[in-house]
């Protein structure tokens, strides 16, 4: 699998919001072994270089152990050269509306590993929050 022309170094690779591109042109975040059309991915796209639009959002007040309270979340849609790609994630502020433009900002620890039921080593805990651009 090759990167879509984005230069990367070991440091920035860890901070890539990596989506997969498939032969039919579709892109998914997260990536999967097979895409919506049943084909293997052919490349990656770093969504952190794109802006997105808020499709819907919620502020959750009943959060699980190790999760900030309240926890504002949004489903956003990126436009990657005409191809829509959706993602879900925390929002940096409680002031967000449908249609807002947001950009991904890196966060080292989205929730406290080990506080919840999942083993800390079972998955990654860093990622990207969405920050309104205005």
């Amino acid at each position, binding site marked *: 699998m090759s990167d879509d022309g984005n230069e990367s170094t070991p440091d920035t690779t860890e901070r890539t919001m990596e989506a997969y591109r498939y032969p039919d042109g579709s892109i*998914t*975040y*997260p990536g999967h072994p097979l895409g*919506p059309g049943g084909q293997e991915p052919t490349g990656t796209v770093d969504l952190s270089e794109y802006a997105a639009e808020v*499709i*819907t*959002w*919620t*502020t*959750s*007040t*009943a*959060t*699980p*152990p*190790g*999760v*900030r309270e309240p*926890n504002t*979340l*949004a*489903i956003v849609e990126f436009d990657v050269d005409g191809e829509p790609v*959706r*993602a*879900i*994630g*925390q929002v940096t502020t409680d002031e967000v509306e*449908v249609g807002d433009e947001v950009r991904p900002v890196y966060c080292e620890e*989205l*929730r406290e590993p080990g506080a*919840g*039921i*999942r083993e800390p080593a*079972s*998955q*990654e*805990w*860093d*990622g990207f929050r969405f920050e309104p651009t205005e």
Partner: protein
Amino acid sequence: MTLLVGGEKMTHRSTAEATDVIASLTHPVEYKHGVTLPSFAGLTARHYLDKYDAPRESLGKVAVKNHKNGVDNPHAQFRKEVDLDTVLESPIVADPLRLYDFCPITDGSAALMFCPESVAREYADDYAVISGIGGATDTHVVHERADPTTMGGVVHSSEQAYEMADIGPDDVDVAELHDMFTILEFLQSEDLGFFEKGEGWKAVEEGVTDRDGELPINTSGGLKSKGHPLGASGVAQVYEVYKQVVGEAGARQVDAETGLACNVGGFGNCVTTAILEGRQ
């Protein structure tokens, strides 16, 4: 002869712990953001209300209806009515959804006994047949679904069940839907073909899904009032439909020969739809 038993013990955990246990079924990219099933419901509810210009009150009316139905169910966790103001003024859990838009944490169990129809009369004068059943899945990652207001697993499992039973949605007299959150009753009632997409909320507003309406939904009180012990709920839904189609639902009884139960796992990740017909 087969005995199917479902059960769940949940109340020994705090609300936060129980929420986390259930949230552990989410994809890692969802879980690390603290996504829970209630937050999926809030995200979906906002999108539904915006997309179909539905009033927030319509969701509250699902809770009011199902609590009212639960009063007459001796197995319900809550046997008390709530009024719309109470629902709409309850604490926010996942904006725009509030406390009364959510099912409670529940301990419970349910059982069903199955046998070939050829020997059913040896065990009971009245019985029900499973005339149709279907199972389907949707994407694990919820935001990847083309339409966030459609549960593909509900659509496809019901298509299988209708075909097997050789009936359509219009032939269903009573239904038990998976109202873990009020918004899910709208989504399922549409995805099962009872109402056009985006019209489920109007059916609730017009009383169509009331116990004395054209298509009673969740006469048991639903998960909202009856409770939601996860491993038991699907079985308990079929139990209620059985009671209805054999005429043993007591004060909850409606005029029904054919009933449907739709059980959802995760946030629509896997779905089973069953159709029952009474034999009296």
